[in-house]
């Protein structure tokens, strides 16, 4: 294709877009709305997945809280009982003082907050490494029957629940996005139809003079793609600043507890930008093609 032809296609695309400003605006808005929802869902799902995998890394263990009133002998007896369970690799004792130190370390700069506590609320515990994840359920039920065990903290369930929530959001979200994208396509195809009608006479002449079908079609596809991409750009800006703002707000208000688990903006935006561009352009192109198939016999 010649450069001049390319310029012609682009120009016609923009002219068509400008000629029906209201419909163009409606198309762009609907693409943007669909993609903002998509962005929201991506952010939610990615963050939940992230939290789940971080949790998994940090707590790939079973933690047993030891009853407060136990003596040291009883505690070490409990230790050997635990190690006797099939599937337990190691059982490390962590005193409540040690636990506090660990926590301070994890919280880093905000560690001083813990010093305001009058009493150490953390329990003595055993941190158990499993020989394999398959033993988890058996070990947990054995632990619960042991003398001196206060509580068994097992994070597999939490992780599973998190992943279930992420899955649910993804399914519902995808259905919602599907509907929104169909609506966006419908609006774009109507916009392109208007552009088509405005150029009927020109197209008629083009056909008689021997323009190829693709030469006639391209400007409309260009128009649809531009509409889609503009929508994607708006959605990207909304999601970028929306998430940036939320991320900062959470960091400021909740300090360490949440922010460590949220994905930073730049990681999210890289993926989202590509996805938005592809979907925006795709929706635009498909919308035009639908219209061309229906209303343009070339």
């Amino acid at each position: 294709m010649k450069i001049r032809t390319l310029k012609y296609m682009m120009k016609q695309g923009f002219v068509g877009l400008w000629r029906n400003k209201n419909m163009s605006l409606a198309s762009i808005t609907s693409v943007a709305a669909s993609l903002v929802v998509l962005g929201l869902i991506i952010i939610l799902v990615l963050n939940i997945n992230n939290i789940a995998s971080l949790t998994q890394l940090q707590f790939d263990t079973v933690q047993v809280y030891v009853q407060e009133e136990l003596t040291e002998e009883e505690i070490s007896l409990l230790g050997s009982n635990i190690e006797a369970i099939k599937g337990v690799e190691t059982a490390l004792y962590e005193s409540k003082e040690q636990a506090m130190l660990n926590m301070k370390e994890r919280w880093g700069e905000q560690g001083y907050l813990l010093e305001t506590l009058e009493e150490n609320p953390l329990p003595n515990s055993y941190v158990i490494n499993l020989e394999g994840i398959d033993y988890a359920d058996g070990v947990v039920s054995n632990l619960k029957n042991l003398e001196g065990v206060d509580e068994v903290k097992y994070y597999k369930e939490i992780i599973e629940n998190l992943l279930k929530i992420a899955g649910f959001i993804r399914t519902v979200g995808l259905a919602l996005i599907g509907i929104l994208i169909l609506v966006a396509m419908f609006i774009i195809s109507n916009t392109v139809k208007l552009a088509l009608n405005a150029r009927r006479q020109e197209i008629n002449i083009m056909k008689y003079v021997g323009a190829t079908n693709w030469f006639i079609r391209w400007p409309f596809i260009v128009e649809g793609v531009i509409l889609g991409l503009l929508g994607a750009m708006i959605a990207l800006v909304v999601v970028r600043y929306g998430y940036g703002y939320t991320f900062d707000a959470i960091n400021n208000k909740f300090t360490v507890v949440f922010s460590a688990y949220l994905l930073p903006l730049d990681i999210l935006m890289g993926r989202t930008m590509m996805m938005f561009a592809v979907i925006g352009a795709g929706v635009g192109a498909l919308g035009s093609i639908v219209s061309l198939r229906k209303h343009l016999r070339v």
Partner: protein
Amino acid sequence: MSNIKIDLEMVTLIEMRNVSKDYSKGIHALINVNLRIEKGEFIFLVGASGAGKSTFIKLLLKEEDPSEGKIIVSDEDITHLSRRRIPYLRRNIGVVFQDFRLLPNKTVYENVAFAMEIIEASSKEIRRQVPMVLGMVGLSDKASQYPHQLSGGERQRVSIARAIVNNPSILIADEPTGNLDPETAWEIMKVLRQINRRGTTILMATHAKDIVDVMQQRVIALEKGRVVRDQQRGAYGYED
């Protein structure tokens, strides 16, 4: 002797063999048409409204496929031309309509150049070709005017310029003088005659009896879908 010479020079541009066209509901638009059009001919296609003139033109432009028979243009069988090939056939056929079909927001020059742009001619070719055809139709001084500033005859000349700017081997004119007063119609005929002298075959569908009678060219008359007369140096032949 001279007859033999003419035979040797004849090159068949269009051939129709046993061509029929039925529309649905059993309407027979064309019935068993057989004819040859040679390169360089000037032909009038006459007949009452509904006799089949429009269908005849539509078959040549591949707006319609024939129901039966075979159509050959420039040695290529176009009876069942694929949709992708149709634009290339049409580049070899210029078309002029009764209603001019100019783009109102383009100047005379741009209207003609448009026909070259959409077949992706180079700007160099466009700059050479457009002024030349505007000169041929006598509109060199109107190049920068818009269609609404022109008279009917001038508009039709623009549309003729557009039809021949890509050097088609045949020019199809569908009642080109239908919207014009007699004097202007004759101007258009002069332009067409001149284009024909340069070697372009011309097929003109018309109701203009006086023009056909005076021009003394080949006349193909259609009646209810049949060719009822095909005559060299013919006349319009009947009143309608």
